[in-house]
């Protein structure tokens, strides 16, 4: 394409007369789809949390009737006492819901949808209808997964990593239909992710507003863009693996059946080839949004923007060649283990760069501790712990001891909860006004932050100790091991902290819901941010801009010496700023 001459700017901001169902249910508007993802994934976050509470009950109070457990059917918890097969369903479904239906859609489904067009100055996604299909496929996948908890024999029960042959053999796992539904839901989710990703990628490449060059894109968009590429290339591998698993379960193929020559490790290779990029899918967008929030809260340009971008790209690239570090003790060739160990050690470097750059951003800033900033700083503090604990398991000999123990559980929760979820609490608060036109309550937001931070650390930090002692993952009753018996008080303590951690999330939920109706009306740019989205009214209208905005600079020009204000929106023209080239080509 050489010219875009004669194409007028498209404005949709005239009176919006679409019927309710097209506007809020079967909407093709990226913002509505983002909000739909938000509600749905918050629901699944709650489901995942409820499952986690049951896990913690069993570990803290083994073989005691769970409060409310009598509501569960006999096949799950007779007389309220959790059964071993229900316990392993709990750990499986907790992991599955949190990874695939809560954190991933919260980060990508919500914020890629909501932010990419808004921050790039596009009127919508490249393919709005495909975008809508992506949401409905994800919702369907979630409902299929949810329904699997209620089928006879119960849900999938081979861990969220679904290691074959346990997952492939109903006679060995004790679950037939539940395992199949897991595969079906994952295939649907893969479809949804691929549809979403191709949309995000196309939009970022082709639909940036004039002047929004690659290196003027906010880091959140960079992260979401790279995440979309990871998702695009990783999810089909998972889908392929899930299809093979489904065929093994249903039509008698032998992919993972060693008795007929199939290979048990094939599943692990396929799963982790997807799974490690997936881990970065779950953290990169959080890193990107935290960069935006930290720059905003520090009132300073981000420190080392380019190295931040290259760190994201580096992580994404290295993320493809580290999958074997999940398999050091799996029986994989030990020489291969050495290779994966080296790449894994190297992937720590870009994460370190990002951490130091965040610190550099705060250095000599003029820090504003609004709720999003608190969560962003909390993210950095917690991500550091999660990142550093990763080095223990990257060191292959040490991994021999801590693999598949609570040390790993602590690590993944420091990254996913301390990392991604803290970033999400911040992001939800930060972009809430642009979604709903109101602000979440500041005071309650801070209370929620401090209580979450406290109970979160009380819950997950002691898990490192358990892991060092050798406490295995996914065991139903640790008290039957002599070497774990002395640690039961710690399990007890963790469970109580976990219940309190769950309970204080009610503050967030109530703040979220009440603010929808009673929150203070937000101004157009309540955080005094530079992003393009803050030049729109609240909530942002369908079609976003009547006139496509022009971009004159990068997104982090805070405390610019030439301005009196301490922020300088990307679309604000200063004297001497040249007009973007593409804009003049458009012939306005």
């Amino acid at each position, binding site marked *: *394409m*050489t010219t*875009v*001459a*004669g*194409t*007028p*700017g*498209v404005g949709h901001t005239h009176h919006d007369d679409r019927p309710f169902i097209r506007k809020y249910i079967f909407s093709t508007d990226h913002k509505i789809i983002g909000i739909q993802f938000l509600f749905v994934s918050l629901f699944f976050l709650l489901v995942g949390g409820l499952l986690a509470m049951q896990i913690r009950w069993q570990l803290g109070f083994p073989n005691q009737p769970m409060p409310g457990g009598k509501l569960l059917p006999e096949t799950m918890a007779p007389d309220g006492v959790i059964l071993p097969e229900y316990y392993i369903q709990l750990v499986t479904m907790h992991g599955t819901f949190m990874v695939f239906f809560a954190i991933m859609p919260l980060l990508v489904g919500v914020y890629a949808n909501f932010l990419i067009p808004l921050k790039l100055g*596009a*009127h919508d996604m*490249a*393919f709005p209808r*495909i975008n809508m299909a992506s949401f409905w496929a994800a919702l369907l996948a979630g409902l299929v997964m949810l329904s699997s908890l209620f089928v006879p024999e119960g849900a999938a029960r081979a861990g969220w990593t679904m290691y074959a042959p346990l997952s492939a053999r109903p006679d060995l796992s004790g679950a037939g239909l539940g395992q199949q539904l897991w595969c079906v839901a994952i295939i649907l989710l893969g479809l949804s992710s*691929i549809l979403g*990703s*191709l*949309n995000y*990628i*196309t939009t970022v*490449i*082709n*639909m*940036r*507003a*004039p*002047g*929004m060059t690659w290196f003027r894109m906010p880091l959140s968009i960079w992260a979401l863009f790279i995440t979309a590429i990871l998702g*695009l*290339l*990783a*999810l*089909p*591998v998972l*889908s*392929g*693996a899930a*299809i*093979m698993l489904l*065929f093994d379960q249903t*039509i*008698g*193929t*032998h*992919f993972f*059946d060693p008795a*007929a*020559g*199939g*290979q048990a490790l*094939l599943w692990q290779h*396929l799963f982790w*080839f997807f799974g490690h990029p997936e881990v970065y899918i779950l953290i990169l967008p959080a890193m990107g949004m935290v960069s935006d929030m930290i720059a905003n809260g520090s009132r300073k340009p981000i420190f080392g923007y380019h190295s931040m971008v290259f760190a994201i790209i580096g992580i994404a690239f290295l993320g493809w060649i580290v999958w074997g570090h999940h398999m050091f003790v799996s029986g994989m060739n030990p020489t291969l283990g050495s290779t994966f160990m080296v790449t894994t050690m190297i992937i720590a470097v870009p994460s370190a760069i990002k951490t130091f750059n965040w610190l550099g951003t705060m250095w000599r800033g003029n820090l504003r501790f609004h709720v999003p900033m608190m969560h962003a700083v909390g993210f950095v503090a917690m991500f550091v712990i999660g990142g550093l604990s990763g080095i223990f398991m990257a060191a292959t000999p040490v991994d021999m001891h801590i693999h598949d123990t609570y040390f790993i559980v602590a690590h993944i929760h420091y990254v996913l909860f301390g990392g991604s979820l803290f970033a999400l609490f911040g992001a939800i608060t930060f972009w809430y006004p642009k979604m709903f036109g109101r602000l979440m309550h500041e005071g309650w937001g801070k209370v929620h932050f401090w209580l979450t931070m406290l109970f979160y650390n009380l819950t997950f930090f002691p898990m490192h100790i358990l892991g060092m002692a050798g406490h295995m993952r996914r065991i139903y009753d640790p008290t039957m091991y002599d070497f774990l018996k002395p640690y039961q008080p710690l399990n007890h303590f963790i469970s109580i902290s976990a219940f309190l951690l769950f309970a204080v999330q009610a503050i967030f939920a109530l703040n979220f819901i009440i603010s929808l109706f009673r929150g203070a009306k937000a101004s157009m740019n309540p955080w005094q941010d530079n992003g393009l989205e803050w030049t729109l009214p609240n909530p942002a209208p369908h079609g976003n801009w009547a006139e*496509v905005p022009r971009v004159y600079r990068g997104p982090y020009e805070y405390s610019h010496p030439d301005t009196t204000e301490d922020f300088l929106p990307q679309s604000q023209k200063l004297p001497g700023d040249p007009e*973007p*080239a*593409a804009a003049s*080509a*458009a012939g*306005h």
Partner: protein
Amino acid sequence: MTTADARAMQPPFPAERGVDAYNTKLGMWVFLASEVMFFTALIGAYIILRFGAPGEWARPGTVLNVPVTAFNTFLLICSSVSMVKAYASIADGNQKLLKFWFLVTIICGASFVGVQAYEYLHLIHRGFVPSGVRDGSELAELVANGTLPGASLGLYGSTFYTMTGFHGFHVTCGVISMIYLYLTKVLPGKYTQQNYGGVEVIGLYWHFVDLVWIILFTIVYLI
């Protein structure tokens, strides 16, 4: 170029320079990247399983009917050629030839699916199923008298049906999409010399499916 045409093939608003491809075309390329990964997973699994298989892998032609599939491959390659012809026709603004070559492509594609369905039925009749060889079938006898290596046939069935099945599924989706485009766009003459993005995009998909088949045919039928 009129405004309407431009909208179809270019972003309908001023934008920073992206790549030299309109959204749908770029989107298709991106989608095909994900398809590559999907088939990579299937083919990768096949390679790993075949190299690690217990005993000998069935020699080409002992289970599968190679000549029939070779003909089918020829059909699919023809359809790719006719797709190029259709594209070239509309790029020249020739509606008539577009209609002809597009239809040829559909017919070749549909025939491919038909021949594959026939092949499946025939194989299942002979006793070759996804789980290996059906007891008491013609192939089971061959295994019993030692003409066919039996140990790896379970993997052979698993990989064969999964790979060719998903390829067939892709061809079927392509044929359905082409029939839809033919009825709604090609026949009513909605593609013009200035606006033929749909033909180009479905063509990309079709060439990809064709390419995958050539790889599959080589590694599954010939090697």
